[in-house]
C-alpha cells in the first residue's frame, strides 16, 4: 500500500490511525446473493432457539438447547451427554474440514458471505448509509466539524446500532435456557446475573466490532485469513482484477483516450475501490484485506456495461485460469476447478466423518453401567466365613423417561448381590431398580461370595432394560478376598 505523499514527512507515530472506509451502495448479482445469505443466516440465528420440539414430560421442549446447568445438549432429536462430547468434537472437526473444503474450492467464501463479522458489519454499514447517506455524504459528514446536526446524526446511528447489538447479544442467551421463560425473566429483571452480563458483553462486542473495528477484525485479529493464505492454491476461486485486460488503465471516457489498442479496459473510475467494505484496491492483486465479497465485481460489471466492454474485468477466477487467459489460451470454465483431487479428498473426509457420526448417534446405547470397587477396605470378612466387597455402581439412563433395569452378576460362583436398601438375607444374583428419567443413578452395591477362591477374581456386572425397547451393557470388575485363609 504505497502512498507516496505520506513519505515526505514521516513523524514517528506511536500508532497507525485507521483509515476510514466508506463503502458505496451497489446493486448486482453478488450484492443480492449477500442479501439472501444475510437474511438466511440472521433468520437461523434469531429463530432457532424458539423452535419447539416435544420430548415428553422429562426433558425440555426446546429444539436446540445447550443446557449448561444440567450438562445436556439438545439438538432436535439428538441429546448429547457430557461424556459424549466427542460428537461435538466431531462437529468441530467437520467444521474445520468444511472450511478447508470451501477455501480450496471457492476461496474465502466464508469471509465474504457467511462470517458473522461480515454479516453484522454489512448490516451496520447499510444502516450507516441509511442515516448518513451514501459514500460522499459520509465523507463530508466525517470531515464536518462537530455540531448539533452531526451529533444528532451520530447519536441516531449509534442508537440503531446499539439496538441491533442488543438484539444480537440478547438472542445468544436463548440458546442456553428455555427461551420463552428466559425472555420473560429477562424483561422483568428476574433472570440470572450471568444472562445480563452475557447480553452486555455481546452487545458491546457487536457494537464495537461491527460499528467501529470492522475490517480491522479481519486484518489484525482473525487468524483465519492467515491460515487461508496457506490453503489457497492456483486452482482456488478468488476475486481478481484481470490486469492483462485492464492495463494500461486510463481515466476518462473511451473516446477521449485515443486508439483502443493503446489502452486496457480499466478506466480507473475507482468504483471497485469505492464499494469495497474493507477499503482495498483489488487491482493491486490478491491480498489479505480482500474478503472476496465480490461487490467490486458488481461495481465493475456495471461500468463495463456502460462503456460497452465485456463484463468480468474483475471476476471470480483462479490464478491458473488467469494465466491461461493471459496467454490467449482457452481456460476451462470456473466450475471445472471445483472438482479436483484436493476438493474431492476434503469432501470425502468431511462426508466420512459426518456419516460415521450419524451412524454412531443412530446406534449408540442409551443405557450404561459403570462399577467402581471400594478400595478401603477392598474386602470385608463376614462372620460366616464369606467375603463381602462393596461397589459403587452407576446406572445411566439417557432416555427422557424412567426405566426399570435389572443389574445381575455374571460369573463369580456362589455370589449374591444386594443394594443398600436390601440385605444379605434376601439377596439373590440380581436386583431390579428404576432409574429416573435422563439421569445417572448411583447404587451402593454389596456382593458376597464364599471365602474360598482366588484372591482376585474377575466377574461382570450386567444391566438390562426391562421395557420393550430393551438395551444392555456390562462392566467387568474384580472381587477381592483376604490374602491368606486359615
Amino acid at each position, binding site marked *: 500500500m504505497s502512498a507516496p505523499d505520506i513519505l515526505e514527512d514521516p513523524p514517528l507515530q506511536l500508532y*497507525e490511525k485507521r483509515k476510514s472506509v466508506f463503502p458505496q451502495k451497489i446493486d448486482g448479482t453478488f450484492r443480492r446473493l449477500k442479501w439472501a445469505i444475510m437474511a438466511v443466516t440472521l433468520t437461523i440465528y434469531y429463530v432457532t432457539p424458539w423452535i419447539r420440539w416435544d420430548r415428553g414430560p422429562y426433558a425440555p421442549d426446546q429444539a436446540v438447547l445447550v443446557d449448561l446447568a444440567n450438562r445436556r445438549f439438545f439438538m432436535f432429536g439428538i441429546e448429547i451427554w457430557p461424556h459424549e462430547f466427542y460428537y461435538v468434537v466431531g462437529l468441530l472437526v467437520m467444521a474445520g474440514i468444511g472450511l478447508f473444503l470451501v477455501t480450496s474450492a471457492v476461496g474465502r467464501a466464508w469471509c465474504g458471505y457467511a462470517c458473522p463479522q461480515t454479516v453484522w458489519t454489512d448490516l451496520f454499514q447499510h444502516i450507516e448509509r441509511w442515516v448518513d447517506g451514501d459514500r460522499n455524504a459520509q465523507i463530508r459528514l466525517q470531515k464536518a466539524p462537530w455540531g448539533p446536526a452531526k451529533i444528532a446524526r451520530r447519536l441516531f446511528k449509534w442508537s440503531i446500532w446499539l439496538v441491533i447489538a442488543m438484539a444480537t447479544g440478547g438472542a445468544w442467551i436463548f440458546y442456553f435456557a428455555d427461551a420463552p421463560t428466559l425472555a420473560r425473566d429477562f424483561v422483568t429483571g428476574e433472570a440470572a446475573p450471568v444472562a445480563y452480563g452475557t447480553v452486555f458483553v455481546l452487545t458491546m462486542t457487536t457494537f464495537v466490532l461491527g460499528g467501529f473495528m470492522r475490517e480491522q477484525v479481519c486484518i489484525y485479529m482473525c487468524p483465519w485469513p492467515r491460515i487461508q493464505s496457506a490453503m489457497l492454491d492456483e486452482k482456488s476461486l478468488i476475486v481478481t482484477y484481470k490486469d492483462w485486460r485492464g492495463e494500461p488503465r486510463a481515466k476518462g471516457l473511451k473516446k477521449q483516450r485515443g486508439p483502443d489498442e493503446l489502452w486496457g479496459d480499466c478506466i480507473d473510475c475507482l468504483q471497485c475501490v469505492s464499494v469495497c467494505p474493507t477499503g482495498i484496491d483489488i487491482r493491486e492483486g490478491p491480498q489479505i484485506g480482500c474478503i472476496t465479497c465480490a461487490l467490486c465485481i458488481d461495481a465493475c460489471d456495471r461500468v463495463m456495461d456502460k462503456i460497452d466492454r465485456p463484463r468480468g474485468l474483475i471476476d471470480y477466477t483462479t490464478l491458473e485460469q488467469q494465466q491461461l487467459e493471459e496467454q490467449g489460451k482457452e481456460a476451462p470454465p470456473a466450475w471445472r476447478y471445483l472438482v479436483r483431487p484436493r476438493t474431492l479428498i476434503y469432501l470425502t473426509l468431511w462426508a466420512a466423518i459426518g456419516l460415521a457420526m450419524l451412524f454412531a448417534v443412530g446406534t449408540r446405547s442409551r443405557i450404561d453401567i459403570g462399577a467402581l470397587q471400594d478400595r478401603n477396605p477392598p474386602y*470385608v470378612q463376614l*462372620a460366616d*466365613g464369606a467375603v463381602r466387597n462393596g461397589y459403587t455402581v452407576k446406572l445411566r439412563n439417557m432416555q427422557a423417561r424412567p426405566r426399570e433395569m435389572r443389574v445381575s452378576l455374571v460369573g463369580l460362583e456362589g455370589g449374591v448381590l444386594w443394594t443398600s436398601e436390601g440385605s444379605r438375607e434376601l439377596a439373590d444374583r440380581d436386583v431390579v431398580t428404576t432409574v429416573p428419567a435422563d439421569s445417572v443413578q448411583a447404587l451402593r452395591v454389596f456382593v458376597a461370595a464364599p471365602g474360598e477362591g482366588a484372591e482376585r477374581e474377575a466377574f461382570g456386572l450386567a444391566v438390562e432394560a426391562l421395557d420393550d425397547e430393551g438395551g444392555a451393557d456390562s462392566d467387568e470388575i474384580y472381587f477381592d478376598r483376604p490374602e491368606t485363609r486359615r
Partner: protein
Amino acid sequence: MADTKKRIDEPTGTETVGHEWDGIEELNTPLPRWWLWTFYATIIWALVYTVFYPAWPGIAGYTKGLLGWSSEEELAEEMAEEAERRAPILEAIAATPIERLPEDSELLRFAQVGGESLFKNYCVQCHGTGAAGGKGYPNLNDDEWLWGGDMKAIQYTLEHGIRNPDHDETRFSMMPAFGRDGLLSEEEIADVTAHVRVISGQADPSEAAVRGAEIFGQQCAVCHGPEGAGDREQGAPNLTDAIWLYGGDTETIRQTVRNSRYGVMPRFGARLNPVEIKMLTAYVHSRGGGEDFVEVAENPETEVDERP
C-alpha cells in the same frame, strides 16, 4: 550491529528503527491505534483496581482497598450462609429419634454424608479411614457387632463409649485374665484354646479340645454362652465365627485367655452434640454391616423409644 541510521524504507514508506544486521533492517511499523488504546486501558484498569482492591504489600500489612473486600470475610459469609441453609435439616435430625431416621431418606442421606466427614475427624485414628479397623479395633464394615449393630446400639456406644472408668452408663464388661491371675493353668489354657479353635471351625476335634470344652463350660460360657456364640449385653464376642478382633490363631487365643483384653473407646457424648452423634451413627450403620432392629423384632417390648 551497525551505526544508527534511520531511514525511510521506500516500498513501504515506513521508517526503520536504525539498526542493521548484515543488511537486514527492521521496520518501525506503528501499532494499530485500537491496540495501543487497549494497552492504555489495561494500565488504567490495573491502577483503578489497586485503589479499590487489596493490592500493595507493606511492612505491617497491605493496602485494604476502598471497597474493603477480603477473601476471608467472603469465606466467613459463605460459611454463615451455608450454616443457615443447613439449620432446618439439622433441626429435623435433632427432632427425629435415631430409629426413625431411615424412614426419611433425605434426612438419612444427609446424616450419612455428615457422619462420614465426622468419622474422618474423630474415628479414623483407631478404626481407619475405611472403617476397617485393625487388631483390637473392630471392623465396622462387617456383620459382627460386640455391643450390637442396630442404630440404637451404635448410637449408645458412640455416646457412652466402652469401658470409660469415669462414666456410669458406659458399656462395660471385663474378661478375667485367666493365666495371669492363676485361674487356669497353662495346660488348661491350651485345652480351652484347642476347644475354641474347634468351635470356630479352624481345627479338627481333638482330645485336648474335649478337655477344653469342659473348662469352657465352667469358665467361659457365662459370658460367651454355652455354644460360644457370645453375648452382646456384655460385649462378649462370638467365638464360633470367622471374625477375630485380635486374631484367631492358636497363639493369639492363648494370649487372650492368659491376659484378657480390655478395649476402650472414648465416649463421644462428651465432645459431640446429639445431632453429630446421630450422623455418625447413620454413617457407621451404612457401612454394610448395619443391622435392623433385631431387638425390636424379637421382643416388641424393647424400649426403643426410651432415648430419643
